């Protein structure tokens, strides 16, 4: 009996000690608190100084440059195939061929559309949002840096949304980095996206400096002119001709940029077919060279891969015996006027079978392998030639100096390509046709310009349906890519584009 009582006492004391012990433990939060990580920095730390905040913005550019997706290569390649610019062998990768024959479905193209466009564009937006939010709550960053970086981030956000809404139509408008607040966003109407793009760019214009002094004179960070140039394009797409004219005019008249002359004969001496294996030597006078005078904004090549740009690596064949990964359509080749220097300088041909059957591929970026670092080519986002074409198209639609000024602007671009001046009396449809022809040739295989242009001109279905492998497949639903399936699955508030359900 006594022992039982003793046992009871013992149990009671054990319990009270345990409870005391547990109380002690729960106050030991310190023992399970770790210092901030070393291999990463917390967001608060990042936005505590000018230098680290700048690093966060550099991260945005660097990611855009090194990730061969939306902002590097895939827009050119996949939109080029959806349009009438690029083609590749059938029987290869079927998923990619769905772009070529315009038969995308939400089902099997989810991963490709997701990886090539959606994911990387939205990650860039997320990173830009993070910079904007970080700067807003920061106290340690100087106001000059805060303005410039906010402007750059707003530019990047606008740039990404421009492509997203042109490729997908209505997309979620995500301006927040807290996933709790964004997971259930609905699709925003395109008008709302454009509203955001405009407000970002207008704001960015006022916040950013107007030269490249922050990047040692290299056009590798967005400045006021980049925002203005993109604004010009946005106004053009919104058919706000006067604003487009004014913005393009401002860029052209800034005298910060100049058109780079095209060589009459390529550096290797063989028009359209450089010698086996060796890329042509580059100089600053090449349009797509790093620090080109024509560039309004380029992404610096940061990878130490043995080539400069992803496009140079993918489009330029290994040697004149090799097949290219992808080549220009016969429609595009047929659209070049004779002796166009762009046909001579920007197209490469190979004869892999040795049987006189040539394949032609884009040769705007020419570094295929191994010129080391720093690379001689950077990836161009915005260049001056576009501003001439924007101004021309706005003028052709009645803005500024009207058709005469439009023809003069077109002739500036044509003159560089060693083409004759247009008839100065062109107006109306024939002038518009000349504008469209110049867009097509000047910006072939570049950032999907052709695909976006065909769509905004309302000519996509009509023109593409005349291409045999697209015939009967292309319809207005195919002009918008499907929202990736995984997104509509995880966010039930998203609206799938018509024809993909």
């Amino acid at each position, binding site marked *: 009996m006594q022992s039982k009582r003793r046992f009871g006492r013992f149990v009671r004391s054990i319990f009270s000690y345990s409870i005391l*012990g*547990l109380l002690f433990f729960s106050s030991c939060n310190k023992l399970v608190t770790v210092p901030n990580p070393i291999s*990463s920095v917390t967001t608060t730390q990042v936005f505590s100084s000018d230098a680290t905040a700048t690093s966060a913005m*550099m*991260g945005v550019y660097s990611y855009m440059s090194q990730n061969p997706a939306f902002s590097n290569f895939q827009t050119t390649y996949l939109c080029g195939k959806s349009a009438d610019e690029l083609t590749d062998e059938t029987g290869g990768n079927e998923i990619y061929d769905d772009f070529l024959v315009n038969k995308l479905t939400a*089902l*099997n193209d989810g991963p490709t559309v997701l990886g090539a466009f959606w994911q990387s564009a939205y990650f860039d937006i997320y990173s830009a949002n993070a910079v904007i939010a970080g700067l807003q709550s920061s106290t340690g960053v100087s106001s000059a840096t805060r303005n410039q970086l906010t402007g750059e981030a707003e530019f990047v956000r606008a740039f990404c949304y421009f492509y997203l809404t042109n490729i997908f139509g209505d997309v*979620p408008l995500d301006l927040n980095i807290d996933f709790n607040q964004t997971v259930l966003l609905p699709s925003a109407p395109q008008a709302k996206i454009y509203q955001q793009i405009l407000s970002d760019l207008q704001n960015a214009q006022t916040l950013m400096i107007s030269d490249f002094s922050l990047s040692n004179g290299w056009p590798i960070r967005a400045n006021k002119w980049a925002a203005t140039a993109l604004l010009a394009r946005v106004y053009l797409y919104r058919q706000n001709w006067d604003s487009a004219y004014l913005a393009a005019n401002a860029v052209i008249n800034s005298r910060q940029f100049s058109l780079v002359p095209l060589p009459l004969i390529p550096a290797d001496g063989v028009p359209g077919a450089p010698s086996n294996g060796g890329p042509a030597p580059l100089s600053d006078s090449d349009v797509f060279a790093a620090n080109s005078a024509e560039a309004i904004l380029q992404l610096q090549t940061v990878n130490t891969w043995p080539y400069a740009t992803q496009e140079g690596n993918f489009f330029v064949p290994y040697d004149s015996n090799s097949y290219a990964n992808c080549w220009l359509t016969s429609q595009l080749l047929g659209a070049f006027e004779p002796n166009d220097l762009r046909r001579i300088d920007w197209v490469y041909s190979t004869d892999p079978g040795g049987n006189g059957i040539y394949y032609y591929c884009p040769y705007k970026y020419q570094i295929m392998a191994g010129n080391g670092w720093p690379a001689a080519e950077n990836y161009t986002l915005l260049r001056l030639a576009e501003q001439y074409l924007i101004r021309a198209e706005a003028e052709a639609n009645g803005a500024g100096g009207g058709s005469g000024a439009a023809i003069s602007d077109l002739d500036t671009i044509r003159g560089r390509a060693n083409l004759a001046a247009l008839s100065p009396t062109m107006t109306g449809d024939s002038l518009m046709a000349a504008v469209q022809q110049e867009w097509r040739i000047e910006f072939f295989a570049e950032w999907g310009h052709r695909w976006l242009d065909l769509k905004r001109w309302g000519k996509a279905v009509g023109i593409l349906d005349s291409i045999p492998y697209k015939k009967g497949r292309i319809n207005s639903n195919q002009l918008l890519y499907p929202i990736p399936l995984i997104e509509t699955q995880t966010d039930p508030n998203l609206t799938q584009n018509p024809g993909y359900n």
Partner: protein
Amino acid sequence: MNFFSNGAPSYREAAGGVLPLAAPDLTKTKDRKTCKTLLFKAMKLTGLILLVACIHVSARTNAQRIAISVKNAPLQKLFAEIERKTSFTFFYDVTILKGTKPVTMEMRDASIEEILKIALSNQALEYTITDKTIFVKKERKGVAEAAPADTMRGATIKVKGVVLTEVNVPVQGANVTIKQTEKGTITNARGEFELSAVPAGGVLVFSYVGYAPQNFTVKDGSAIRIIMKVAQDELDKAVVQAYGTTTQRLTTSDIGKVTAEEIERQPVMNPLLALEGKVAGLDVNMTSGYASAPVKVELRGRATIDPRFTSDPLYIIDGVPLTISFVSGAPSYTTGSAGFALAFSGPAGGQSPFFSINPADIESIEVLKDADATAIYGSRGANGVIIVTTKKGKAGKTKFDLHLDEGISRQDRYWNMMNTTQYLAMRRQAFYNSGIAPSPLTDYDVNGTWDTTRYTNWQKVLYGGTGRNVNVQGSLSGGDARTTFRVAAGFNRVTSIASFGADQRASLSLNFTHHSLDQRLTIGTSNSFSYTESDLIGLPGNVLMAPDAPAIYDSLGNLNWAGWAGKYQNRYGENAFQFGSLKQPYTAKTNLLNSGLNIGYELIRGMQLSVGFGYNITQLNQVNAIPIASLNPLNNPAGSLLLGNNKNVNWNIEPQLTYNTQICRGKLSALFGATASRNTTDAIFIYGSGYLSDLLINNIASAGSTRTSEVYNEYRYFGGFARISYNWENKYILDLNARRDGSSRFGPNKQFGNFGSIGAAWIASEEPWLKKILPSAVSFVKPHGSYGITGSDVVPDYSYLSQYSSNQVLPYDSISALLSIINPNPNFHWQSNKKLEAGIDLGFLKDRINVNVVWYRDRSGDQLVQFPTPVFTGFGFVIENSPALVENIGWEFTVSAILVKTSKFTWSVNFNTSINQNKLVAYPNLSQSPYATGPGALHIGKQLNVTNVLHYTGIDPQTGQYSFLDKNHDGQIYWNPGYPGDDSYPVNLAPKFFGGLGMNFNYGHLNVSLSFNGKDQIGKNAYAAAGNTGPPGVVNTNEPVAILGKQWQYPGDATASYAKFAAAASGQSLNFLFRSDGIYTDASFIRLSNLSISYSLPATYLKKAGLQACSLFFHTNNLFVITKYQGLDPETQNFGSLPPPKTIVGGINFNF
């Protein structure tokens, strides 16, 4: 175990009160005689019990009646007669029979009591009966007529004594119990005890974990000296548990043990590999044939959905946890942890932490399985716990052991591939079938570029070398009652069968323990240091290369790029020649220091305060050079250099308070403690490129450009724990564990979690009523069970914290760039694992045969998963707890038996097998999760280890293409698991069951032991595993001879089992084949993992040489595999990776 021996008695003998065998103090002459008699009786007794056991005599009670007839017989003869006719044994000192009168009696149907009453009347003798033993002693005046129970009420005496081991080391914490009253005490640090109120003639029972219990009959108040002997009975041997030791007999939990003996027999460098097939439920897989390669260990099935989290259990070496932090990207469930090699994985796919541990220093490895065993490790015990205990010095004569062995490894399982003639015939047929001509650019094997008279068996070139093994181990150990030590050093080197590469380890270990003069203070330290060096290269080439391919080196000894690429010298030649890695050496040098210090102090009797400090540090430097000489000169290559700098540091502090006491009729032990630990993992990766000369390649400063990334994790962990266990008369045992854990991997307010378990066991065979019912062959029955909750915090460190990093992003405009790396979520918390287990332990024939059967159900809920978020939020997922539930239900059987034991020959067997059923029970919104699609898409109700494949239906007789089942009857075959239109179905990849069988034969000085392990599983067939992705006949790809004649040959050919030969892939048929069950095959196997023969030289020879012992041995590993699997090895199914070799070593062991 010691069935025939006359040494220490088994637990049962003693607990039954049969044998009060107190080892006498030989200094006291008056006891010497008793000793002799007792020994004599003990021998007789054991023999008798054996006889009884063997003839399966069922137990009879005191009520048994016999007939007896003696004439003028001495008492001794009468007793013998009674012993012969009953199951009773007499116990007496022969001296008391002097002067007794012979008896004459004739009785029928008489009870023992009736017989003895008559026989002992007027003899001045008395008797008592306890169980089946009849004690006969001199009659005492006054108490002569008293029954034994009455003695208790009589005068009591105070007893003092000391409990020592055989080498006179005090035993602290031994239980001393008065048998009659079940009261008792605990010995103090000096082994001393004191008991008042011991009835005269009372029996004291001494017990201590790992030692055979002893009984001692108290005669008077003189001091008692008890020498405890190490238990020989399997059930009573010490087993290491969490923070202490126990025995298989008394534990309520489920612990598997592998002894030093079993580990030493296996010539493996990594001690984890010695566990394969040894413990039920423990699945050990080598990931490649490199000695340093990571080992994938999984206990009782996969519990975690997230494929990034490994199944690794918690490893504890001498009390110090060996933790390696999760480093994003490095670990994966399928390939296991990359171990120490975190910066980059290298040719072996990582480096096992246990490669740095010398198996020769290991005393035992315990595998803690159920909730009761692991809950005290709280959150870290979810995947089980593996405790490694190193060898310690023992008091006694100083011993010097020297072990030398040397041996070879080879691979002689080859796959029968086509020779050049057959190969070329196949290729030509393929061109004919495809209607194309050989390309001058690619088809070097047939277009005249390569010499078609050459023949190379690439398997022999790649794996046909002979590896050399050298192993030297020396140790010095000894000590006295106060101080013991062990110093050991070892060197082990294994060269690869790939004829390039070697793994080596040098290690030093130092253990010592010291007790203060009053024995109350104890200090112990164990330290091991090891240095390993792995010189490897990535396995070049591939076994499917064309047999007429040119030599690897040209006449100058340079890589033969030109010879392989032919006159065109273009990139196709680069693709064909795959031996660049031959000149790309990889070296990994690792230093490991593991150090533990334990200080204990006895506060009061039975109460011990101790603190353990542990520290380990690993430094691993990796260097992998890619010189210009290893690259195709056509590309004007530049060299590059990969450097990895890995550092892993753990420290922990564990204060503990233990208290052991007797309460009521039971033993109570209580443990309270806390643990605080910190782990830092730092991996720096430097990639230097643009080397213009191979002379500079080893200097990172000479690189044209460098890229550096670093991953640094700090992990802190704090827990408080308590264990209370109560053992009522060795019959009812209850074990309670509680733990509160905090982990730095969780956000503020989510750091702490509570865990605990309850375990109970009932040693039913101790119940007298059951004993009566049980056949006597059944010696031990223990049902046991446990239930508990443990947790898991396997998420990347800092997942709750918003962070930027430079690791994934390159500097821009020469400014270092930062990028957000995760969607932080501060709200996730502990994953919970609820473990339920029930089992029964049975002993037969005096525990000669032990059988354990265990059923368990582990349910892992609150799964920490990558919870899907729309990608437009920045990232596709956040770490979150999902209510998903994973269940593992299984059975484990373990049998160990001594089949034959005679003085010359012993044959023992042990066997284990386990079956595990893994199931995803629930996963809300699975269809929206990242786990809904892809090859490994999950399905509710199916196991986690699935692959989703088409069902292969053979060769289409009309087209000669592979055909598949159109599961959804939509008219087309479509593989895209998780998406509509998909035709795939899940195939289970986890083994159905696995197990091991070990046998040990001892004949005189010769010992032979065998161990097998086996698995019932499916795996990728060698054809697919070799990386063959084209139809038979495609460029530069050899095929097995077996397909000849079985390929499709003409439309309507219904007997074909391989597609028609084709020079180019056409259509989806082949792509689909590699996504179908057509590439899976039975990969079940039985492997003779170990055969070991040793011969110990007879003592007579040794004396002359001054040796204690000396043995010669052969150890082998992986001698043969019985399997239907084709290819090199059913376990390392990847045909391209290095298969496990067979190893034979021979050596000699000296003990001085």
